[in-house]
């Protein structure tokens, strides 16, 4: 049946089964391929996107449950926190293969939108759901700290 999803500020109508995970709706039907598939069971974080500003694993969220929510994929990121994260990622050369990095950026952005002075423990807590097999963890952590200080200097994440 048809569902209307609000993605990156735009309404998208699609006719899929309600139990289809949001991940596959955005990837296969709406062609937002920035959001990645890594495990399909909320274990790796590759599919992280924002639902009403909260980092969410889209591989286990049925389309039917995403109706009426504000969905942001990496293609729709634009907040100062997101920009700070993305520029830190480039400057510190965080990504290696990069496949996990959409999810890392989404989780890091959600963290910094809530907390612009994260401790190491805060970062570990927010980011340990995102696996990186290339082992970019030290640079992710450094990138979050760099972005956090940039956000603070610019006067906040909002």
């Amino acid at each position, binding site marked *: 049946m048809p569902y209307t999803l609000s993605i990156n500020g735009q309404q998208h109508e699609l006719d899929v089964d309600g139990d289809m995970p949001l991940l596959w709706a955005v990837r296969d039907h709406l062609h937002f391929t920035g959001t990645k598939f890594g*495990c399909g069971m909320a*274990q790796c974080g590759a599919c992280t996107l924002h639902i009403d500003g909260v980092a969410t694993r889209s591989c286990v969220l049925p389309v039917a449950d995403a109706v009426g929510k504000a969905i942001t994929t990496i293609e729709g990121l634009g907040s100062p926190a997101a920009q700070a994260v993305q520029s830190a990622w480039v400057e510190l*050369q965080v990504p290696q293969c990069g496949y996990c990095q959409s999810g890392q950026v989404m989780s890091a952005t959600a963290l910094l939108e809530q907390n612009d002075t994260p401790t190491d423990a805060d970062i570990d807590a927010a980011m*340990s759901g995102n696996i990186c097999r*290339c082992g970019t*963890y030290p640079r992710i952590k450094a990138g979050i700290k760099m972005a956090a200080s940039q956000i603070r200097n610019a006067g906040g994440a909002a």
Partner: protein
Amino acid sequence: MNINRFARNKQQPGVDTGRRNFLKVAATGSAGFTLGISLSAGAQAQAQATTASGAVNALEYNAFVSITPENVVRIYIKHLEMGQGVYTGLATCVAEELDADWQQIVCEHAPVDTAKYANLLMGQQGTGGSTAMANSFMQLRRAGAAAKAMLVSAAAQRWQVPIDEIRVNEGVVSHGSHRATFGELAVEASRQTPPATDALVLKTPAQFRLIGSENTLRKDTGKQDGTAIYTQDVQVPGMLTAVVAHAPRFGARVRSFDASAALARRGVRQVFEIDTGIAVVADDYWSATKGRELLQIEWDESSAETRSSDTLLQQYRNLVETEGAIAEQHGNAVDTLASANDKVELVFEFPYLAHAQMEPVNCVARISGNSAELWYGCQSATGDQAAIAQLLGTRPQDVKIHTVFAGGGFGRRANPKADYVLEAVNIARQLPDTPVKLVWSREDDMQGGFYRPAYAHKLSAALDDQGKPLAFQARIAGQSIMAGTSMAAMMVNNGIDNTSVEGLTEFSYEVPERQVELHTTDVGVPVQWWRSVGHTHTAFSKEVFINALARKAGMDPVAYRLSLLTHNPRETAVLKLAAEKAGWGSRELPAGWGRGVAVHTSFGSTVAEIAEVSVQGNNFKVERVVAAIDCGIAVNPSIIRAQVEGAIAYGLSAALQDELTLSEGVVDQSNFHNYQVLRMNAMPVVETHILASTNAPSGVGEPGTPPIAAAVANALADATGNTLTRLPLRLS
């Protein structure tokens, strides 16, 4: 993949007197290889007509560099970018000699064309064995120098000035008041005669501006904003998605199946049998997966592997108590051991490991008549192309492969049997002219085989009265990675697969008598190289064993190693650098902490790692790792540090928790909930120090992995007094 053996045997491209060495490598490494940078005028015209990119108007100076009138320098990357940084590293070599502006450089994967793009150390187009930089360093510098010479010669002609008065700097060619960008000279430059290889003058290391610089931003862009394209993201009009139901046990075949419920499922288009299982082709991945769940399949398991990994390891432990095939022999270690008064013996065990790269394997294929077109993170270009052509009964040149970024590889994508690639082709050929994306789920990937094999080792040493080894013996039992592959002829000699023993053969420590023996086992579980191949296990046993000898002798583990490395200046220097930077012997550790060291040489590079662990009861955490690497000239220090950090994380994951087991032939793990991998909360602080060097660049992607598990085990021995010999490491 491992080609370390060739790399050791053949001289690598040198830095100063490069030409002779380079030609030698090219001539011995490959049949029919042509120097990509010295195309004749005719060949050049042909290159222009069929550019690597297929782009119109791009002026190709050689197989690797094209400069457009829009002032874009496009570099064709013959190696797969899977995170190791080849786009950036190889572009650096070209840009250095071309004196390009780093901003104007864009990279793209080269097409499959073995004549132009062979790996000079492998003789075929492909990526592996940490050879990308080692085999490209001189080749791509020459490519950049050749393109620059043509730009300069065009400028000299245009301005009517002597060639040697022309300057080139950051993408601008100048003479007195004359200035031109590369783009402005591109068309005229393309009409110049390409210079002969021996006429090229390369920079001296002192003249390097980009090589060794910290500021060359990566060229594999789009990874921070989701725009980078992986196989999973490839869209071809009319494309369908396929999944395959594989047998639960390796070696089983389909006996019969009922697809009626699957076919009735919304979105499912076709269901059919292929040689690896039952393919379900649907409009999208979700529909394909749901369709697969509805299949009824009966498997014929008459030739399936039904043993458990516990049973196999028990068998391996028994095997290492018996004499194996001799892989290496110096003196008479066996007799010396038999008559020794003082002897140490340790038995080691290693589980199967999955690669678990973040992007499960996948491949897009379209078969039309006699030709095939594929899109995927192609790592073994020549091998995959040949395998596809053979399957289709067509010619390699009728198989067109578009290489896209790979979401990690760690060995899995370079499959000597092209397993998942041929599976995609087998599906796509049933739907002529229709592009099909084969997607493996995480479960398919984890349970699909091609693991790092399980092994047992037994190491023995006879000691003199100082506790120094007089004789050393290593026995290894496990599956051969190379057996049954097209590389067996090269890599298996007299029944010895070099990748089973490398790292224990050519033992780096000075021991007068040595013997390495191998039991190659026959098991139906598919195995494959895994980041650093044989060194994944041999470095562990070697470095834990030597550490145990040091502890027994009551000597400091660094000092003990150094006393056995007097003939090995490279390992000595790297070990000393790591020890100094880690504060070995000077830095006080908190109570309950331990410190351990390991040093190992692989893929032409030497890495020492010093781990600090904190122990609480049966739990421990790796707090800090200090690494030192000698990888020759450091082309891009940031990428080298990133690779060492990543290699440590990858090896640490296996040291701490990765373990793949089988129960009666069925893989017990399926996804990241029961195949636990390293997460950020377990990642130590890592410091990497690069030894200054003027030697030719050597491997970087893999050599950081081998030492870490041993460094951690040795740190635990320091903290607890117990030597752990089984991976993953458990204190209880």
